[in-house]
């Protein structure tokens, strides 16, 4: 039962706890049949829709943010600019976030296969979603969370998630900082024989496709009432592990919607995700670059043999915002629109406020999620906690923010500005990461797989392979 022997059995334990044989999608080389994996999970899109509807998941409102749009227009440098901003109010899901879409299908699948319970390793909204769905579908539930630093001081946002999981009847295991949390998780799977409700399973990610299809259909209905149905010009997604953007983009494609798919993350440059000391120096526990970058450049780092979340296949543009800007936007959403929602989910809204100013007034940008808020998970306790941990909080220019040292609230809304991420180095990094894991030369199938993985043509891949 020691660390090394349990970790050595990782794939064996996971195989028994997921019920999918991934080897049938493998080519034996770099390539694997992603689309076949997504198609052969056993549920059609309509079945997934029906599962979710039966559980009260999805069909959340699409709300136009008229006052935030008006403020963006006041901040735009040129007349006639400032796209209409809409938000998909995913906080209206049973556990308060879009993660219910992922959990509903995962828990349904576990129940169908005859598992007595589900387990997940997550400190985020997904834990609450799995606990909520386990309650609704009558299964046991264990959530393993990274909660505390070595002084037993915990992020208020995560401790709220502990409370919420317990409120849904789940057992919560709270851990100190470190990736070996996964070791305890594997022990739990072995001990209980529970289903591993991974965030990155095909049915989990396929569950998010309904978010993409719904928002397009709702936009067409809203604009039809105004005279002419149209699609959004851009859809912006808060990006961490990649499942949100993957599922949403696949949903948009299902509706033949050509909106630009934009990813947004909170910039946490310089903070190490596995550092005991950095743990409480960050104010965002998800939607940040600490997940966004590594999961884009190596999706299979997740707890699945092959992750269904493959963000670089779908991202057209990637932008960053700072912690202070997102907190500021969270307060604006409450004050100007009467919508009090959780900060982390507003990462993409914050980016949309900036991006809208460079789009024409007749264009539309859709922010595809909100999340619930409450004690612990709210601008007030999160900024209060940051201040207690020695983080300076002040008004100023967000460009001066240094993660882990200060949080800068924009001195004027016009100061909110996205930072572009160059996607090509990330694509090259994905290719390098893939090549470092193979010994033989790439096959033609591998080249075409990597082209799809990076959303580039085969020449781009061949060029990278030639210049290692």
């Amino acid at each position: 039962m020691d660390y090394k022997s349990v970790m050595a059995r990782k794939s064996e334990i996971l195989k028994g706890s997921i019920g999918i044989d991934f080897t049938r999608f493998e080519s034996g080389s770099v390539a694997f049949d992603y689309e076949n994996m997504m198609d052969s999970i056993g549920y059609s899109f309509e079945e997934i829709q029906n599962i979710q509807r039966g559980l009260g998941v999805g069909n959340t409102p699409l709300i136009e943010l008229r006052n935030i749009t008006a403020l963006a227009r006041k901040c735009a440098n040129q007349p006639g600019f400032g796209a209409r901003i809409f938000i998909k109010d995913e906080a209206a899901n049973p556990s308060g976030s879009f993660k219910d879409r992922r959990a509903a299908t995962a828990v349904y699948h576990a129940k169908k296969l005859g598992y007595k319970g589900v387990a997940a390793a997550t400190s985020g909204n997904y834990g609450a979603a799995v606990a909520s769905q386990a309650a609704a579908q009558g299964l046991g539930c264990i959530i393993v969370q990274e909660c505390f630093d070595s002084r037993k001081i915990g992020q208020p946002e995560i401790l709220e998630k502990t409370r919420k999981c317990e409120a849904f009847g789940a057992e919560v295991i709270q851990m100190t900082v470190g990736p070996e949390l996964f070791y305890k998780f594997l022990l739990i799977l072995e001990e209980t024989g529970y289903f591993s409700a991974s965030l990155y399973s095909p049915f989990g990610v396929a569950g998010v496709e309904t978010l993409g299809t719904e928002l397009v259909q709702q936009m067409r209905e809203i604009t039809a009432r105004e005279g002419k149905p149209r699609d959004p010009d851009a859809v912006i997604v808060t990006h961490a592990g990649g499942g949100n953007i993957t599922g949403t983009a696949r949903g948009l494609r299902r509706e033949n919607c050509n909106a630009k798919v934009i990813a947004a993350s909170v910039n946490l440059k310089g903070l190490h995700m596995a550092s005991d000391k950095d743990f409480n120096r960050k104010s965002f526990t998800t939607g940040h670059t600490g997940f966004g970058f590594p999961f884009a450049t190596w999706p299979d780092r997740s707890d699945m043999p092959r992750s269904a979340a493959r963000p670089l296949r779908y991202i057209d543009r990637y932008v960053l915002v700072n912690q202070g800007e997102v907190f500021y936007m969270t307060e604006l959403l409450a004050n100007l629109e009467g919508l009090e929602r959780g900060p982390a989910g507003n990462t993409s809204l914050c980016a949309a406020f900036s991006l809208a100013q460079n789009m024409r007034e007749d264009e539309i940008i859709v922010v595809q999620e909100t999340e619930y808020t409450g004690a612990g998970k709210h601008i007030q306790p999160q900024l209060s906690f940051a201040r207690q941990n020695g983080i300076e909080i002040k008004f100023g220019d967000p460009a001066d923010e240094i993660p882990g040292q200060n949080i800068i609230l924009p001195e004027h809304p016009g100061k909110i500005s996205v930072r572009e991420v160059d996607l090509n180095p990330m694509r090259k990094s994905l290719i390098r990461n893939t090549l470092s894991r193979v010994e033989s030369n790439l096959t033609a199938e591998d080249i075409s797989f990597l082209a799809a993985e990076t959303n580039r043509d085969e020449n781009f891949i061949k060029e990278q392979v030639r210049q290692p």
Partner: protein
Amino acid sequence: MEAIKKGTWVSLKKTILQADERAEGIPTDTSAVPLVMWVNGFLENDAALGGEATIHTKMNRVETGILEEVNPTTSVNYGEFVPEILQIGIQARKILYGL
């Protein structure tokens, strides 16, 4: 010390990995400290605070560790007032409505 009665809902602390057992490649500040777990459950037998105890959890698993808290309380709240937050809405309304 007064014994905590069998069946009481408690929080248990358990070291999962000692500092020298931690994974390779993690930051040094993390590898310098043990990996610790807390889990809640019902006491299997009378036990003392700070002493070893066995519990069964909500999912009927059995765990043994150090008895740390009786009727563990959630600590989440809205924190101490942060006055800067107040100014955000005031300024935005001024820009938008001149209020």
